[in-house]
């Protein structure tokens, strides 16, 4: 019964499929970005929205874009950012076109915030904030069969905190501002390259830069320790183009990374042509900025 096992060899091969980054490739009209001004609004505030709709032939002034507010709370059982019913329900259209001005509902902080809606059966469970302490009012955008969701960040204050803590939070919290994209540059190896003359079939390093104040600091209430914890916004950049392929659909910086740029590798198409490129910058509190570029690929 005494034995010694020696296994001579093992062959193991990776088994995961390579899915590619199809989300970056624009082949038809797609809603790819929404920016709200202000980026964080109190109930009753009027918010101006701007959309970014991309198409194979460049940016589109989407006159048919429909804007709706969704008042349906997300059940705890659903793993998505908004209730699935927000996508399937008939919602009244509040605005149409590439831009919209919509008043934030006065009940937004009861419906989607820390203050539970009134009930005759007892206290209801309030919505959970996201990791940045934020609560959001969902909006649905419809463009033909294309749908997108934007969530407007709400200024609701704190719930579940002592009076002193709430006062401290109000004193130290600054409402979110949208980040600002500054530039896009191209590198061929380590040498700068012009966006108007990029060689076909050679990988291009694209570097996007944002302003230093794009990543803001903010306090988050930790309900377990009943303290305020300081955080800094993380930034994510989505890359879209009408041709070529990116290494990553989204790149960015963690909250503890203070760099003001992010980089992606773009493989241009094999033939000379004009390529439209869009960048959509998101901060972790729901702020956004976007920019459009035209690249020229030469033989």
């Amino acid at each position: 019964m005494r034995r010694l096992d020696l296994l001579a060899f093992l062959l193991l091969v990776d088994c995961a499929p390579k899915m590619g980054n199809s989300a970056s490739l624009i082949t038809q009209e797609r809603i790819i970005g929404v920016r709200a001004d202000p980026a964080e609004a109190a109930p009753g505030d009027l918010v101006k929205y701007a959309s970014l709709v991309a198409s194979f032939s460049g940016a589109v002034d989407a006159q048919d874009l429909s804007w709706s507010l969704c008042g349906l709370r997300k059940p705890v059982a659903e793993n998505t950012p908004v209730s699935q019913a927000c996508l399937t329900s008939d919602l009244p259209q509040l605005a149409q076109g590439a831009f919209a001005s919509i008043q934030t509902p006065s009940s937004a902080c009861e419906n989607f915030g820390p203050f539970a809606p009134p009930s005759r059966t007892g206290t209801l469970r309030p919505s959970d904030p996201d990791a940045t302490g934020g609560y959001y009012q969902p909006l649905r955008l419809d463009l033909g069969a294309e749908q997108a969701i934007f969530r407007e960040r709400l200024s609701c204050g704190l719930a579940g905190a002592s009076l002193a803590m709430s006062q401290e939070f109000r004193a130290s919290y600054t409402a979110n501002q949208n980040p600002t994209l500054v530039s896009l540059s191209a590198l061929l190896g380590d040498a700068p390259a012009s966006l108007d003359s990029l060689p076909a079939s050679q990988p291009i390093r694209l570097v996007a830069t944002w302003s230093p104040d794009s990543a803001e600091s903010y306090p988050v209430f930790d309900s377990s320790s009943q303290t305020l914890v300081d955080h800094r916004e993380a930034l994510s950049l989505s890359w879209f183009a009408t041709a070529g392929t990116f290494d990553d659909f989204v790149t960015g910086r963690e909250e503890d990374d203070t760099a003001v740029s992010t980089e992606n590798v773009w493989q241009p198409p094999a033939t000379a042509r004009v390529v439209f490129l869009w960048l959509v910058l998101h901060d972790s509190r729901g702020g956004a900025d976007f920019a459009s570029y035209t690249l020229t690929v030469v033989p």
Partner: protein
Amino acid sequence: MSARFLVLAILAAAPGSAAWASDAYQTVVVAPPVGAAGEAELSTAELRQIPGAQGDAGKALENLPGVARPGLGGSELVVWGAAPGETRVVVDGMEIPALYHLGGLRSIVHSGFLRILTLVPGGYGSEYGRGLGGLVQMVSRAPPVEPYQGEVGADVLDASFAAGVALGNAGGVLAAGRIGYLDRILGSTLSPDTRRLFSLPRYRDFQGKLVVPLRDDEKIELIFLTSSDASSVSNNAASPSALAEEDRDQSFSRLGIRYVRAFADGSGASLLPFVGWERTRRKEVAGLDSADESIVSTVLGLRADYVAPLSPKLTLAVGFDGLFTLSDVQRSGSATLPAREGDLVVFGQTISGGTSADSWSTSIGNLAPYVAPEISLGRWRLLPSLRLDGFWISPSRSTPENGVTPRAGSSRLSWSPAPRFALAHQTGSWLRENLELGLYNQAPSPGDLSAVFGSPTLGIAHALHLVAATGIDVGRQFTVQPTLFYRYMWDLVMRNPDASPPLAQALVQDGRGRAFGAQILVKLAPHPVFSGWLAYTFSRSERRHASEPSYRLFDQDQTHVLTFVENASLRGFVVGTRFRLATGMPRTPVVGSYLDTTTGQYQPIFGQQNSIRLPVFYALDLRIEKHFRRRSLDIVPYLEILNLTNHANAEEFAYDEQFISRSNITGLPILAVAGVSVRF
């Protein structure tokens, strides 16, 4: 059957019994509850020849009927459609939290430490409870009768040992352990996508047993078990919004002192107080959301069993089974991470739910006296039994933390009778029938009693088991064991489906479940040349919320599971084959997607829940070994080829970032493992 097994366990541990010596170094795996209809037994030699099990008795359980095929890297045991957390695992009377290490590569207890390993998928006796599903029962070996015996082993997964030393008069010491190192070997070779699906666990375990004989037929055993696991996976995404990580740690220990006495009149008694510690931590990151849960528990247990043959027709078993678990729980992050059974989620989905935090403690106790008489009337055996489950549940917080409001907890004691009945009949020398019926109860887990993430008011879930089995001897060549089973479950814990649930009711006890089906085991009678069996299970397991009109498939349902295992010995060669075929597990289709422009991530739109399945799994495994005898050494070189046909089995669906195209993440390709076993 239950009382009979208890007698077997006590006799096996009694120093003066014949079983003490003759069974000292034999491991058997007993298949489903066919009782007097005869059990399927596998010897240690058979176990170590099953391709894919690597000589691990616990892994061999996966080849028995009634057990769903776990996914690659899965460490969960799904028996007759019960959730993994509903099946109890017991070692020498002490309940342990899991059968397998993380990753499912190894069982937690070394085979060299075990004498008996029993799987009862349902309908087990009154001496055990606290679970709605099946029962895995392991009984440790006795120390050797020779001065010392042992074995050491090493392969690509781990290094292990098992050793025993006799101390005279049937006393002695037995110890076994294992240290895994697969993560160090393969850690840097897997792609990020693969590492998101397959974690490379680090594990170690140790089992020890000291037997001190007191008088004839009386002894004390000191038993110690411990296990530790850690795993970490990450996709190393270029953006924080696309990050996916999971870190898991789990460990436990058990220390028990068992007093065993066998009396001259054939009765026997045992008393086992034990103490244990458990620690689990699971940290998960999905996009900008995360979840971090830590549970630290102290376990106090007591088992007392007494079996007495009152007359030739009546044997009485009485006892007490108690377990008290004191837990401190801390949790922060998303309420929807990790996903629960019934959640709509697909692999790779970034989750943008809310985040919260809670810390609480719980006391959960089960005090269960039982009585189980066994009545023999000619060809009939009746086993009416009763277990009285008393459950004490006490969470420290009834409502979420709110400013300076002092915390208020709650306590409640409830009694849930669990009557069970077994009937066995011997129609002829070749035909036996069994019928088993019983109620089973299960307390909520400490992690579900949160006022933020769960509900402090959760109570006891219940199940009804009904099992009918037959054992048929077909000549001297085969034993055929067909079994029908039905399990109905109610008061299951599920997420609250309401968009605006009441405070502290994120989980509700409105779940209903049912699992039913049939299985058949055809086993070759012991033969010098051939051995093996064919096992087939048809099963359907379903769940629904009380407010839903119809059932949906259970997340881990597998309709068909077919396993064929064969070994042939000829001229020093042993050729073993294993063929497995299993229905793919249910998945929810993605019928559309939308861009969440706030994070820049696409999100899926789901179709009907669990309305599609992963493709059918099948694999043929081969093992060839040759025996050489050199002086006192038994040298056995062998070659194992897993997935001989190189079939690309789909283990999971993967979607592109827009959730438009779907492809399969496939399991292991053809895999060759060669080695040599030296026994001395």
